């Protein structure tokens, strides 16, 4: 028996809902390795910034470059969403390069005197980026971004002497835990 208009509409609604769920689950699986990677980078970078601040100036650029190279390697191993759409990985990579350039330019422009301000600013911006990306990819990433923003502000205001260690354990930890959360569906 042919379907009625309402039955067809219900079926299309079910399809759209399942596609959204599946897309989010796939996005989570693909995002998890990046969370582990950058969580580890934050942990190392912020720990050294707190314990050996004189090493931070050379260490952070090295960590960021290593992070970008590793991210590119991870991204290039993931299949493109559509046949022949190899540009998607590049566009993701380029988006984060734009964020990194914006952070660098802002620091040059405003020349903050306190390393903690720089650390907090970078974390806030990354948190905001995750929150925005999460609105499109899936709420777990958005929640992670909002948590990073809240924890960064909290640490900056209440834990000034050990802000770096706070960011290493709580900021880096949030990214790593988010990675573990994204792998669970």
């Amino acid at each position: 028996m042919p379907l009625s208009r309402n039955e067809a509409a219900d079926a299309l609604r079910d399809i759209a809902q399942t596609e959204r769920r599946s897309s989010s689950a796939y996005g989570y699986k693909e995002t998890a390795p990046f969370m582990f990677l950058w969580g580890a980078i934050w942990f190392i970078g912020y720990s050294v910034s707190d314990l050996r601040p004189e090493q931070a100036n050379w260490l952070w650029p090295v960590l960021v470059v290593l992070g970008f190279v590793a991210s590119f390697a991870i991204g290039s191993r993931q299949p493109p969403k559509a046949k022949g759409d190899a540009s998607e990985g590049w566009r993701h990579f380029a988006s984060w390069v734009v964020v990194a350039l914006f952070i660098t330019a802002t620091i040059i422009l405003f020349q903050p005197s306190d390393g903690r301000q720089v650390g907090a600013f970078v974390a806030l911006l990354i948190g905001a980026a995750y929150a925005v990306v999460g609105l499109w990819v899936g709420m777990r990433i958005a929640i992670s971004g909002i948590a990073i923003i809240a924890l960064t502000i909290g640490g900056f205001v209440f834990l000034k002497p050990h802000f770096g260690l706070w960011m290493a354990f709580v900021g880096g930890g949030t990214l790593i835990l988010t990675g573990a959360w994204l792998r669970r569906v």
Partner: protein
Amino acid sequence: MEQPDAIIHQPVRLKIMAALKVLPLSEALEFVRLKTIVGATEGNLGAHITTLEQAGYVEVEKDFAGKKPRTRVQLSKAGRRAFENYTAYLRDIIDAAPAGE
């Protein structure tokens, strides 16, 4: 298409096909993830996957991830085509019939 594709038309199988359709072409979905996305029990999902596999709409691959057995399901070319035909059939019904019918 006068009649809906009976294989895809069943609600759980329709969800399985929709979940697999959004993946990149060469990607497969693990059974446990598919179970969560579709919201079916293990036995129910297994039975419907077998039906889809027998129709040639999905391909099932069983292997080991470390020491744990893993089942992965992927949409076949025939399955992708059948699903596209099915959704086109649904849209045709909506476009043809006046609202409220």
